[in-house]
């Protein structure tokens, strides 16, 4: 059970406090309700580029990192298609430094030209390092474009092209800031050796005076149900053929999410999972095989991907995958298999909750989904899933008409 308190400032900033007196540290986590899905199709990669700019100085403080490091702190941030999250950890006695820094950059950035110029280059290098200069690096760029026709999940967080990042202007930066980086679009989670009353007064003092801003009303185009199979064949300079198959699944807050999440574990969550045992160990068609999803807020994808053993025909490998999916859809799973993946979910949650850093970001993310207390109630939802539901969801999800397939083939 993770205890926490919650209050809201007048400007709409939601604050969550989790006390843990066993650590000398504190974590301050600020989540902004904006991700790559809120970008315009002509200016992708912006939410992430913006995350970099948040470290380029704010209205009253020339640099973010230095004062935090002086206070013994450390920080980082990440952007997804759904959200942008900033976190720092520092000795609890210095927590006010984090409030000072985070509130000033929520108040206003410095909008430095130099910072924009440098970070454009840095992000281009990040783009190259992770998505160009790496075998199979462009898979998700291609896969998203194939699987989504309409919803902005069709581009990656880093952006659809380097050009978009290179073209970003200071005007874009300002407009984005005032639209999204406001108290009413943010969640502040504080964890560690802190007191509720202390956090209340610090939050009032530093964040209270920031103008509320306008609540951003998200109105994203809805991805229409896929009606027929989609295929893409790519040839590339890679050593091994690879198979990727994606099926549309449910939003994160849909009750059927839990069954879907368990399905990915049944198929590939460990050495005793179905796909691994059958296709890597017994039939030896793949040298590795994974089934996963990103846990995205809006309706996401469940993916099966694997690299083929040299000499195996990709059609044969694909049929073998389909055969396994047919089997689980028709025959279902045993109670023991269900128990196994539920136990895994329980154990994974316990390990995740070990650090105050994780607890702070989890609370903030659950609050974004609608209720921070999900951190305590989700396990029960996993436990309610039945073998019958697993079978039914496999039948519904793994429908060929719901599927996008990519053959990523070696040139030679």
């Amino acid at each position, binding site marked *: 059970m993770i205890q926490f308190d919650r209050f809201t400032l007048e400007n709409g900033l939601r604050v969550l406090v989790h006390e843990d007196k066993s*650590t000398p*540290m504190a974590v301050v986590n600020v989540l902004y309700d904006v991700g790559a899905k809120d970008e315009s199709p002509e200016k992708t990669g912006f939410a992430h580029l913006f995350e970099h700019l948040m470290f380029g100085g704010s209205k*009253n*403080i020339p640099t973010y990192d*230095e*004062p935090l*490091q*002086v*206070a*013994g702190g*450390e920080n980082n941030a990440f952007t997804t298609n759904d959200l942008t999250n900033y976190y720092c950890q*520092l*000795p609890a006695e*210095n927590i*006010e*430094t984090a*409030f*000072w820094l985070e509130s000033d950059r929520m*108040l206003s950035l410095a909008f430095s030209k130099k910072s924009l*110029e*440098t*970070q*454009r*280059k*840095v*992000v281009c*290098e*990040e783009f*190259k*390092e992770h998505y*160009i*200069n790496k*075998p*199979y690096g462009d898979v998700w760029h291609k896969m998203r474009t194939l699987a989504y026709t309409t919803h902005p999940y069709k581009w990656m967080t880093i952006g659809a092209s380097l050009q978009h990042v290179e073209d970003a202007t200071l005007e874009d930066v300002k407009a984005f800031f005032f639209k999204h980086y406001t108290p009413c679009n943010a969640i502040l989670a504080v964890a560690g050796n802190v007191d509720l009353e202390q956090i209340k007064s610090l939050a009032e*003092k530093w964040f209270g*005076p920031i103008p509320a801003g306008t609540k951003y009303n998200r109105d994203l185009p809805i991805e229409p149900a896929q009606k027929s199979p989609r295929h893409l064949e790519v040839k590339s*300079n*890679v*050593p*091994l053929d690879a198979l990727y198959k994606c099926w549309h699944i449910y939003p994160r807050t849909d009750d059927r999410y839990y069954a879907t999440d368990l399905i990915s574990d049944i198929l590939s*969550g*460990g*050495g*005793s999972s179905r796909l691994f*045992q059958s296709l890597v160990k017994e039939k030896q068609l793949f*040298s*590795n095989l994974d089934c996963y999803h990103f846990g995205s807020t809006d309706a996401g994808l469940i993916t099966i991907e694997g*690299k083929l*053993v040299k000499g195996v025909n990709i059609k044969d490998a694909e049929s073998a995958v389909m055969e396994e999916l047919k089997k689980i859809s028709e025959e279902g799973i045993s109670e023991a298999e269900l*128990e*196994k993946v539920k136990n895994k*979910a*329980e*154990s*994974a949650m*316990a*390990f995740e909750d*070990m*650090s*105050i850093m994780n607890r702070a970001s989890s609370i903030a993310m659950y609050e974004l989904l609608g209720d921070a207390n999900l951190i305590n109630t989700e396990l029960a939802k996993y436990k309610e899933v039945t073998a019958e539901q697993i079978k039914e969801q496999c039948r519904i999800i793994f429908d060929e008409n719901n599927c996008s397939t990519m053959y990523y083939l070696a040139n030679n």
Partner: protein
Amino acid sequence: MNRKIAPRIKDAVDYSLMLKPYETYKLDNGIHVYSVNAGAQEVIQLELVFYAGNSFEQQKGIAAATNFLLKNGTSTKSALQINEAFEYYGGYCSRACYNETATVTLHTLSKHIDKLLPVVQDMLTDAIFPQQELEIYQQNSKQRLAVNLQKAEFVAGRLIDSYIYGKDHPYGTYTHPDDIAALSIEACKKFYEEYYLKGNCVIFISGNFSNDLNKKLNDAFGKLKVNQQAAVLPQIKMKPSAEKKYRIQNDVNAVQGAIRIATPFPNRLHPDFKKAMVLNTVFGGFFGSRLMSNIREEKGYTYGIYSYIQNHMTESAWLISTEAGKDVSEATIEEVYKEMKKLREEKIPEDELLLVRNYMIGGILGDLDGPFQIMAKWKNIILNNLDEDYFYDSIKEIKMVNADTLMELANKYLQPEKFWELVVY
């Protein structure tokens, strides 16, 4: 309220850090157990460390293969049954092979430890190394290697180590597809016999558990016929390459260069080591470092650049590592040398040094969050034959080492002609 004025802070250097002590005891067969019982979550991490790393192998790749295949079959259980036994209870059993040591690690909810200890025991007393499991391992390892060899950073990492330590040194050696093909069941069994069954073992256990765990560990591992003598690490001489500068083309379409610049450096026992950790932090050890500020934040040549001292037991190296745009790779290297020169010729300003001291102490304070992290610190100390003084002396150096000493150290070590230099495109 004036937002331009920073709130008052307590300097992290004014904190007194305490590493929660471990408990230690011996099993019936002499195995040392180190135990840290702490934390709110009902979880346990059990780590069995064997002196069975690649330093001990006669044939390349055999230490890693043996370690991997421990989990792939005993005389009573198939690989699938072993995996099921762990996974049914949400447990996770991993293994890893390093230069000196090889480990088997179990993560589990505390309530399931009783059911999982016998499975680990089985792996460590009765592994049978089935032929088919080896073949699958060979096939998949070869494929993984083929993919990795297309990554400039992977190739650069192997090559720089081979230049510094020499290809025949355990830290400098690397695997070829032929080595994987040459692995055999007989060699695995022999290695298992010598370095696991009759090997040298130390146990680290951390998390939240009841007092009778000592007895359970003794039941599970107290009868292993391990060697009670302390392990003797093979001493193999470094043989650095004569040539110091390399430019290697790995991929004609590369858009970045993987840059590695390295020089041999003594291990933890050397009096310069703890001080050098502070100098390294200033140089390239964190986000606010000289290298990062100049080469990423000022010039935008890279997404990230770091320097670090390798975590090796017998010998080590000081390394600078980055992936930079292809057209700015040479400029990046020049800037690295410029930053070395600055550290040799100019004293580090006091405010920068205080920042680094605070950052480092704050980092250690944060690192001690939870039983696994505390045990990780202890494990490092114990396996390197150090004691808690090492931890406290390191902190003393972070707080006390002065700018003059750091400049002397820069003059002693950060000399470009002492570095090997590599770019893989």
